[in-house]
Structures are given as C-alpha cells and as structure tokens.
C-alpha cells in the first residue's frame, strides 16, 4: 500500500534527518529531494479534493456546466496555491507548472464525477 510505502520512504529518509512524507506534506516549505514523492503528494491531495468536492456538489446540489467548471478551477487553484505559495517548490524542476497541474488530474476528475453523480442521485432521486 502507498501508506506503507510512504512510511517506508519516510523511514529511509529519516536517516538523512528529513521528517516523514506525511509531516512534510502538511508543513510549509518542506524539502523534497525526491521529485516523485512530491508528485505523489500532489496526486493524493487531488483525489481527496475530488472526493470532498463531489460530496458537497452532490449535497447542495450544484448542477450543470457550472459544477464541472467550478471543480476544475478549484482543483487547479488549490493545487497551484499549494505548490507555489505553501510548499514554494521551483516549478521548473518539475518541468513547469503545467506538469504539476496535470498530475493525477484525469483520475481525480473521474473520481469527482463518480462521487458527484452518486451523492446527487442518492439525495435527490432516492
């Protein structure tokens, strides 16, 4: 499991005096010597945003194109703020902001659609 893998990664890096991935993911301006680790964090953050947004959009309910557009904007916006302002990573190291922005986007979009449809159908068409 990734959790296990992440913990293992954390243990590996613990020798190099770096805190675990979990701690670094929630701490501002952390160091990311392994690019893949940071991209994994971005990926999983995206999935969590998709799940939460899907639940909220379904419960309100938000409908139509506005719901889709709002999710795309929210997803890209939050992650952009996260990597540029919170973690302050150098985008160029990862091949530009676009590379980070598209990391895990499709699967999070699909996950968002599934949760949105699920909650919308369950709440409003029982």
């Amino acid at each position, binding site marked *: 499991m990734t959790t296990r893998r992440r913990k293992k990664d954390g243990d590996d890096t613990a020798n190099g005096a770096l805190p675990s991935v979990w701690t670094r993911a929630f701490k501002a301006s952390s160091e990311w010597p392994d690019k893949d680790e940071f991209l994994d964090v971005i990926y999983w953050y995206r999935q969590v945003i*998709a799940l939460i947004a899907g639940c909220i959009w379904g419960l309100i309910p938000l409908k139509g194109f506005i719901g889709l557009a709002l999710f795309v904007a929210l997803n890209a916006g939050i992650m952009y703020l996260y990597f540029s302002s919170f973690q302050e990573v150098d985008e160029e190291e990862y091949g530009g902001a676009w590379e980070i922005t598209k990391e895990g986007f*499709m699967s999070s979009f699909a996950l968002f659609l599934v949760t949105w449809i699920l909650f919308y159908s369950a709440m409003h068409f029982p």
Partner: protein
Amino acid sequence: MLADTLLIVFISICTALLAEGITWLLVYRTEKYQKLKSEVEKQSKKLEKRKEAIGEAIDKTQKRKLEKQEEKLKNNNRDLSLVKMKSMFAIGFCFTALMSMFNSIFDGRVVAKLPFLPFSLLQGLSHRNLMGEDYTDCSFIFLYILCTMSIRQNIQKMLGFAPSRAANKQAGGFLGPPPQPPK
C-alpha cells in the same frame, strides 16, 4: 437506483482488482518484468539527468552517446510493453465476457441521474440502451467507465504497480510533451 449505483461502484472495484490480480499473476511477479522495469526506470532517470546536465552545449560524440542511450531505452520500453501484452489479452478476453453479462443485467435500466447534461458526443454512451429523451439519465456503461477511470489508477497507485513517471516521460505519455530530440 442507489442500489444499482453502489453495485456498479462495487463491480468496478472488483474488476479493477481482478485486472491487477491477473496482471500480477502473468506479469508483475515474473523476473523478466521486474528486471526490465528496474532497467527502464534506471535508464530513464539517467537519461533525464544527462540531458539536463548537458543542456545546450553538446558535441557530436556526446550526441551520439545520448542517441545510443535513447535507442537502448526505446528497445527496453518495447520489450516491457510486449511482456505486458500477454496480460492485456487475458484481461481483454475476461472483460468482454464480463461486460456482456453486466450489459444484459443492466439493460435499459437507469442506474443514476446525472447532475449535468453530457456533451452530444457522450450522450450515445451515457444514454446507451435507455428509453426516453431525458439525457440526464445515466446508463450502466457510462458510470462503469467513470468508475474504472478513477478506481483502477488509484488501486494501481496504492499497490505500487503504477508505471514510473520517469519512464512515462521518456516514452511520451498521454498529454505530455514528446521526448525532446537531442540538439
């Protein structure tokens, strides 16, 4: 309706696990795959670093070396896809049978309500085998595809079977820029 929706989510989790299981049995656990995978990963990372280090200033011998390395990586990538092919056939065969079974079970049933109107191109999929003109009705196949898109990749990632980014980048993944030829 809710029971159907949940059932489809459950089905797609099961089929994603089944697909990964088959791939593990036929591919992931084999020594050849593991060797090739680590090789490709190592080479991709090395190539990426080298390209970064060399940058613009490049002479002919370095260029040739880089090309040779790229060629080797390409060959390894091709071998890797050939190894994966076996499981892809098995999965394709399995899923064709499963899909026809699920299609007949959910035939003509509205499994969920869409909170948006799909583009006209997608309506053929989202309204497949459904009666009526309400295009917010969702068919089995549309929900199943969406579930698979999200769940399969997440399961692959959780189990650590997802292809490495470095290798993907060198191979020119979907939406990604094509690999830069050495200048």
